[in-house]
């Protein structure tokens, strides 16, 4: 892999890792903790936020699948023998 590609791959991995950490931390929405505002007059804002969080999680999963899919794993699927540690 040329050096520029390696840098791009490393940056991508770093960005995705930071995104995963950021989304995990965003689950802790202390700013809406005591807020009972009703969005559209019916949905409590804390519930609305976490519904949107689910959509954001789906978006991040798309990015992981698109940019960090473990391509090597599905090409190594020929059946191989295992350790012979079965009981007699």
């Amino acid at each position, binding site marked *: 892999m040329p050096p520029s590609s390696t840098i791009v791959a490393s940056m991508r991995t770093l960005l995705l890792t930071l995104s*995963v950490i950021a*989304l*995990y931390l965003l*689950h*802790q*929405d*202390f700013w*809406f*903790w*005591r*807020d*009972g505002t*009703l969005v559209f*007059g*019916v*949905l*409590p804002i*804390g*519930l609305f936020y*976490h*519904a949107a*969080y*689910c*959509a954001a*999680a*789906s978006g*991040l*999963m*798309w990015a*992981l*699948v698109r940019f960090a*899919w*473990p391509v090597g*794993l*599905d090409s*190594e*699927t*020929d*059946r*191989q*023998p*295992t*350790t012979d*540690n*079965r*009981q*007699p």
Partner: protein
Amino acid sequence: MTAAFIVFAYLAVVLYIGIFAFRKYERKAGPEEFFVAGRSLGPAVFLLSLFGTNMTAFTILGSAGHAFGNGILTFGLMASASAFIIPLCLFLFGTRIWSLGRRFGFITPVQMFRDRWECSHIGTFIFVLQAALLVPYIIIGVMGGGTTISAISGGAVPYWAGGALVALVVMSYVFLGGMRGTAFVNAFQTVLFLSFGLAAVLFIGYRSGGFAGAMERIAASPDAWLLTRERVSPWYFFAYTLIPLSTIAFPHISIFCLTARRMTEFKRTIILYPLCILAIWLPCVFLGVAANGLREVPAIDAKLEARAALASPATSPDDVPALRAEARGDDVVIVLLEHYSPLWLAGLLGAGIMAAVMASDSQILAMSTMFTEDVFAFYGGKERFGERMQVATGRVFVVLVTAVAYALAMRAPTSIFELAVQYAFTGYAALVPLLVGALFWRRSTKWGALAVAVWTAAVVLGIAVFQASVPAPPSGTEIVAWSLGGVNILTRAATGTYIFGLMPVVTAVIGSAVLMWIVSLATPRPTPATVERYFRR
């Protein structure tokens, strides 16, 4: 009874699906076909069935019930955290489990652990632990079945008969159809309960005159805290995000990862999983919260009266158990459906509830798979009696597991939700370091794995013994069982046990990870040949 008949018709349909899978694929019925559907499930069945496998009685009944008593907290606690953690675990662990299953022919996680760490009896210990932790999860299904059928039939079918009927139907299609029958049924059920939530919200909202009035009534009442999370510590909320880790360590989920035809089948599942969670949990949690503003429903009013009486200092301690039972919200969705939906619709929606309730099928099959592969085949049964006997043993075990689960469900008084969280989820979350060690860390050893398993068993057993010997104090108070230097180490509250003020899952997971690390570094690693097979450069 009209509604109950629709539910019975639904049970007949899922039974037929199991029989269909049996008749169509019986000719191929070796262990791989019976236990992992011949590793041949396509993307749609894989997504729907994996999601359905993970949805249990408390997804609909328990989540709405929990939201009825705890407000919007329920969604952030259980749904949105799962919407992030579970697909991430499928991405990190699920794909690797699938790949190793293909390469080495594994059908259970214990087979992988035995091969990866060159061990035998340690694998057996892990099997016993996994099986013991899975039992409460199976019981949930039977209990939910009994509750649902009894409620939908207006009490004409008693709890024990409803539970028996559900257990019998589940046992039959798992017995006949194995993993393929279970996957088909789960896919069908997922479609049903994904439609259920939306339909229930629309009909109840329409017939009750809209939810805006109900939510405004809650906002103006002393129960306005239900629309916020002000009664819960942010640390509790944070600690709870570790619970969804348990999913990938559940044997029925890791075994299900082996059923995909290709690794690319995971892609759609990983991306759509959070949206499926949103589609099923949001309506259920919303209904549970909104029910607090629907006092025109007599059964809801009675629950709210019981809750108010529980909070009153004038209430006699003798009345508390009966009031707690009355205030419980496990049947709140069914109560709303009965009041607002026409009978036929309540029946159809009841079938949707049944779909979630019957998710115990995968766990029963997983127990059977683990026993036949990790014990029967491993200790020479396969070589002595052949593959046909191995499948027959699996089927016999399906019957035994169901019968034991039914017997236990009829004696278990604890609420559905508490039972699952306190034992199974905490235990399985603590087993995740086994997967991390096996799949990502070359230096991990069988002794590290044993330390994790022993620690997990000790923590779960410790919680069970502690909670049995220290009765739950009244809501809002706690008993400090052990403190040191002014720091409360072990406390008992109405909602469970707390270690350093956090749910036990935190201590369990951190302890497991530390033990895997320290014990592995202190013990000899597996042979280089084995390590190289798992970590090719």
